[in-house]
């Protein structure tokens, strides 16, 4: 079975939630739509307090190419443009607060009926951008940017990422099982945009039911590939390497080796945007972990408070840590008063015994992290440089190629927070380059 070099085998823990069908989260009375839910240039709110909005209405204007708008998750009234803790940065960020009127009325003309396969490339890209679609695996990079590579980078490979290698999470798995047509159609739209006549959907072998179903349904030009179960199989560069044996050069992007990767959920959203004009206002999220009473896969609107989501799942049970995303790369949260975002693939609640917060000790130079690193780096050296804040030396040791997958930290017997050290070094190097630019 195809795979990459390095990586780890953490306990999968998917059985907690993988067999639970997707349930709709009920319409609630208040939504908190963060303005910045994507990676890239900021967006500016275009509604103000007191405005009536309808479901799917545009709420913000993107400032730049690498930027997308957000949309109203339901019909109602804008209460205020307030500030809310942003789940990614942990700082207060602008947020559009909407009081729902309960009617849940679509904005004028939505949803519409059109045939994406008769639309031009530009029309499709525009539809994707104006629907506010971002990478739904968690990185939230605007999708229209990824689907419009520069002319000097010819693309010959399109991969749909259904690996879902993060432990615990099952949102992509459920989507592939329950709505395979949306994914397949979205894949064909993306193929049309990229001008390709074939694509690959890559799924880890621990989802045999999804692989079987997709193979049954898939047209001849879409190939379904089963991948070895290994973390981080779903990381972009590792996925490309596993399927094509190509290696993204140091400091490069997938398009440098002629590849584009999109998450399965993103493909489904692309289909909704192109065929029906529906913006990205809801997503499928796994609410899981032993710290929540009833783990569930829910279809939830962007802007729903995590507190309400957890209440819907029976509340907390000896919870010690709430994470947005999976346990490997997710972001720990310090409050439940944060909204679900476009990139929230999971809400993971861990008990104290599921976490490891023991203090770290000195590196014993065992080399396990070197073996685990899927990027071929030497994490032990980076972690030691991190302790001293020696970012220049770390950059020489390919610091910037680290994808922060957490494999090294997972295997470290000294409990060293290696990814944290890497993030620290990256921040120091960014600050230094910003300073030298300013001077």
């Amino acid at each position: 079975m195809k795979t990459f070099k390095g990586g780890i085998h953490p306990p999968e823990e998917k059985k907690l939630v993988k067999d639970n069908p997707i349930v709709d989260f009920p319409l609630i009375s208040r939504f908190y739509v963060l303005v910045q839910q994507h990676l890239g240039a900021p967006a500016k709110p275009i509604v103000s307090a007191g405005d009536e909005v309808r479901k799917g209405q545009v709420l913000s204007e993107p400032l730049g190419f690498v930027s997308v708008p957000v949309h109203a998750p339901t019909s109602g009234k804008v209460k205020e443009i307030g500030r809310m803790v942003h789940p990614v940065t942990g700082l207060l960020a602008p947020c559009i607060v909407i009081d729902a009127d309960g009617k849940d009325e679509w904005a004028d003309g939505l949803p519409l009926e059109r045939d994406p396969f008769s639309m031009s490339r530009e029309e499709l890209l525009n539809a994707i951008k104006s629907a506010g679609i971002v990478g739904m695996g968690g990185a939230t990079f605007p999708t229209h940017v990824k689907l419009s590579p520069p002319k000097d980078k010819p693309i010959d490979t399109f991969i749909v990422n259904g690996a879902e290698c993060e432990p615990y999470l099952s949102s992509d798995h459920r989507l592939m099982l329950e709505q395979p047509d949306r994914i397949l159609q979205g894949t064909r739209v993306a193929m049309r945009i990229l001008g390709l006549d074939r694509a690959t959907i890559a799924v880890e072998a621990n989802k045999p039911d999804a692989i079987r179903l997709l193979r049954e349904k898939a047209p001849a030009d879409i190939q379904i590939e089963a991948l070895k179960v290994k973390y981080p199989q779903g990381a972009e560069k590792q996925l490309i390497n596993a399927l094509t044996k190509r290696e993204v050069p140091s400091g490069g992007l997938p398009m440098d080796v002629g590849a584009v990767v999109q998450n399965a959920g993103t493909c489904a959203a692309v289909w909704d945007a192109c065929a029906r004009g529906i913006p990205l206002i809801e997503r499928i999220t796994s609410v899981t972990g032993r710290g929540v009473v009833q783990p569930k896969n829910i279809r939830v609107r962007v802007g729903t408070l995590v507190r309400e989501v957890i209440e819907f799942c029976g509340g907390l049970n000896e919870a010690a840590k709430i994470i947005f995303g999976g346990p490997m790369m997710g972001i720990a949260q310090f409050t439940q008063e944060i909204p679900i975002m476009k990139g929230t693939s999971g809400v993971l609640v861990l008990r104290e015994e599921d976490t490891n917060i023991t203090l770290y000790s000195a590196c014993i130079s065992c080399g396990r992290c070197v073996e685990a690193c899927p990027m071929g780096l030497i994490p032990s050296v980076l972690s030691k440089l991190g302790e001293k804040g020696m970012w220049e030396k770390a950059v020489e040791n390919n610091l910037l190629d680290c994808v922060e997958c957490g494999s090294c930290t997972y295997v470290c017997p000294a409990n060293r927070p290696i990814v944290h050290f890497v993030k620290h070094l990256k921040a120091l190097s960014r600050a230094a380059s910003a300073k030298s630019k300013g001077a």
Partner: protein
Amino acid sequence: MISSILLLGGIGFLAALILGVSAVTFAVKMDPREQAVLEHLPGANCGACGYAGCAAFAHEITTNAEAEMACPAVNEEALQAISEVLGRTLGGSAPLIACVRCKGVPEQTVNRYEYVGPKDCRAAQLVAGGSKGCRYGCLGLGTCEAVCPFAAIMMGEDGLPHVIESLCTGCGKCIDACPRSIIQLIPRSGNYYVGCISKDIAKDMKPLCKVGCIKCGICADICPFEAITVSKDASAVIEQSKCNRCGLCVSVCPTGIIAAVRMPGKVRISPEKCKGCSICEQVCPVEAISGKVKEPYLVNEGKCIGCGLCIEKCPADAIERIIS
């Protein structure tokens, strides 16, 4: 035996010859003054002067006749010595000292979460902007202590860094290292600073920290020199060039966060010079001076705050500071 001695002796002689010749021909001509200057510099290579280290700066100041004394860490004595070596008078900059503008000890503040990562404030700041409830407050992991080349910062048992006055040279390394820009350089001569930089309005700040600046503005109102500015969304700031170190602000601050790097000396009235005019009694803001007209006045040392207003006003120059 003999041959061994001759052989080894010969090798030794040859090597000595080569060394001796090369010492003369390849000698690096170095200004002896440079070495002398270097001996008087602090030798911490902190880089605050803008040069690569003490040696680089010693070279610059010796070779360039127009170079000023850029080392903030050099003391009066060393400055004198360097001036003698170079044969020109060097003006030292006003000596500075670091002050930590946060008084939020753990008992008075709240944390948003428990932080368990690397012991470095800059790394802690990356995790949701730091664990401390107040986003302006000291994270207390001691990055400033670690970078100080003079060991002048010590993390106290109260979880905050403390500047050791006698060791701090004002090089400013800690300022660059602090991710929250809490540390500031102020003149050494006993000036005051406000121990809070929070921009939060009082209502937002109070639940997070009991000892932050509540922007009440009492200090700004009482300051006789208009040296303090405060607004709704910015902590009180003391403009050091205007501050006359009267210390009135310290006594009125309701949260007690205004402090001095070194308390100024109290005053004494010379009984021989005092003519008993009573002006000092009138200007004293804390009623520390009392006496009878036409008789020498007395200072109550317990009450005197060392503001020095009386010194300025005394027509007979009878008042001076007690140097402690």
